[in-house]
């Protein structure tokens, strides 16, 4: 039978991106025993992902130092897939099944890119904007390659600048938002000198690169691999040859674990109070799952959640003002990068919408709800469990998200069997505890 390793902590944090790292530092410094859990092989999350085997990005260093000073050793390569009862999480590593026990839980599960279907989007080398950046950071050679960066959101320019710095030729950056809405966003940034400095740096990094607004990909073509992309650019279509299309439509929060725990979710985001507490006792949430706000916002929310879970409520209160200011930035960002309705017309009848089960657009059209479509077509029933097609069909058809059931990630049969056959599995305490 699969052996179950047991880890017990006062506070467990799920996700070692900016919010999770800040939470871990603040909770750890409060003297509580902290478990920082992540499914990647090193901390940093997506934005601070390390360049190949190295340490995470420079900005993560200060937090890592504080985490290590509190003698917290991040549990990397752990993927939580079930919550058999309150206070217990089940996670898989590459080879084992683990039980993680907690008194308090902080969800810092971050966000993923929103993908929208268009003809050809399933061709190899069409990928997310953050997706291509992550692959380059994981060793994909990009020097001399030609890339089109498209979609929406502040990530596009950052990714284009990153790829260019690493030797790629950026054929075009296509932002679906209009120039007008970006201009309004720029005005909203005026109160934040740090953001203006970042924006000016990006402008310098992308000098000479065509950056267009009101533009989006309408089709990708190629024989088994991407060769060309057709762009709609302010009403005119244009076809560009490229090696990669990096295409993401801003971000959607990862709320599956929160939903499984029973936390209330309002309009896609986890509801939290001033202390980052969810509607479920002893479960807090910080960062993108509470609202797409970017790294600064995630850091402040993470600190508040960490302080609160460490019993330092008065110190947490001191950060409320900072959080309020950052939330107004988040709201402005949400407005600026709203998806335009024309994007609903991108898929043709044959365009695959559910990539796991190869369900085309035309088969989904007749159904009024995601549940009905799921039962009849298997849309959303593959291994990604609707993480890709869910946000897409929400936009395309106004379908609301379906309920979340365990396992929230595909788990090995041995793990599921071990859970089913033994409600109180034989435990091997790896980390001590109380």
């Amino acid at each position, binding site marked *: 039978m699969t052996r179950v390793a047991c880890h017990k902590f006062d506070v467990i944090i799920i996700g070692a991106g900016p919010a999770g790292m800040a939470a871990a530092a603040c909770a750890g410094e409060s003297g509580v025993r902290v478990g920082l859990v992540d499914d990647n092989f090193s901390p940093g999350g997506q934005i601070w992902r390390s360049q190949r085997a190295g340490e995470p990005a420079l900005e993560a260093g200060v937090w890592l130092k504080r985490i290590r000073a509190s003698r917290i050793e991040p549990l990397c390569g752990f993927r939580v897939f079930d919550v058999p009862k309150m206070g217990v999480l089940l996670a898989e590593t590459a080879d084992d099944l683990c039980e993680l026990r907690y008194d308090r839980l902080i969800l810092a599960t971050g966000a993923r*890119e929103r993908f929208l279907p268009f003809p050809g989007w399933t061709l190899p080398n069409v*990928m*997310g904007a953050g997706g291509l950046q*992550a692959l380059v950071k994981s060793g994909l050679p990009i020097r001399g390659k030609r890339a089109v960066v498209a979609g929406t959101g502040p990530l596009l320019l950052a990714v284009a600048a990153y790829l260019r710095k690493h030797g790629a030729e950026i054929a075009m950056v296509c932002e679906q938002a209009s120039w007008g809405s970006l201009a309004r966003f720029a005005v909203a940034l005026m109160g934040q000198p740090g953001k203006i400095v970042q924006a000016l740096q990006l402008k310098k990094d992308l000098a000479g690169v065509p950056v267009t607004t009101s533009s989006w990909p309408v089709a990708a073509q190629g024989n088994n691999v991407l060769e060309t992309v057709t762009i709609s650019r302010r009403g005119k279509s244009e076809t560009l040859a490229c090696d990669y299309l990096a295409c993401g439509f801003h971000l959607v929060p990862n709320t599956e674990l929160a939903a499984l725990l029973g936390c209330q979710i309002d309009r896609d985001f986890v509801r939290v109070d001033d202390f980052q507490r969810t509607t479920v006792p002893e479960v807090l949430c910080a960062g993108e799952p509470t609202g797409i706000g970017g790294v600064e916002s995630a850091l402040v929310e993470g600190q508040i959640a960490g302080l609160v879970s460490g019993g330092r409520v008065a110190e947490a209160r001191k950060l409320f003002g900072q959080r309020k200011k950052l939330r107004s930035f988040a709201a402005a960002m949400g407005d600026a990068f709203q998806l335009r309705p024309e994007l609903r017309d991108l898929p043709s009848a044959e365009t695959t919408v559910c990539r796991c089960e190869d369900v085309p657009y035309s088969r989904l059209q007749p159904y009024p709800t995601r549940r009905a479509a799921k039962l009849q077509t298997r849309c959303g029933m593959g291994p990604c469990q609707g993480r890709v097609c869910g946000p897409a069909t929400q936009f395309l058809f106004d379908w609301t998200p379906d309920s979340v059931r365990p396992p929230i990630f595909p788990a090995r049969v041995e793990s599921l069997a071990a859970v089913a056959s033994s409600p109180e599995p034989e435990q091997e305490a790896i980390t001590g505890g109380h």
Partner: protein
Amino acid sequence: MPSLSLTVNGVTVDVEPGTTVATAAMQAGQPCRVSISGAPRGPLCGMGICFECRMTINGRAHCRTCQIRCEPGMDVKTDD
């Protein structure tokens, strides 16, 4: 920079240490998986969410290759 070798569908690839299996497959020009209707697929999200990069590594099917680092002598195959 030291490198290590692995095979993807029998094609030998040399990669730098720390490289993920997903990017090694892309360097080898091999699809990660074949979809249920027979189309080749490569990585999409790069962060362990989309499952498009799943491959068979040393006989174990459905490994999310964007979250697994290359090891010398790995035998990687397109998932079907």
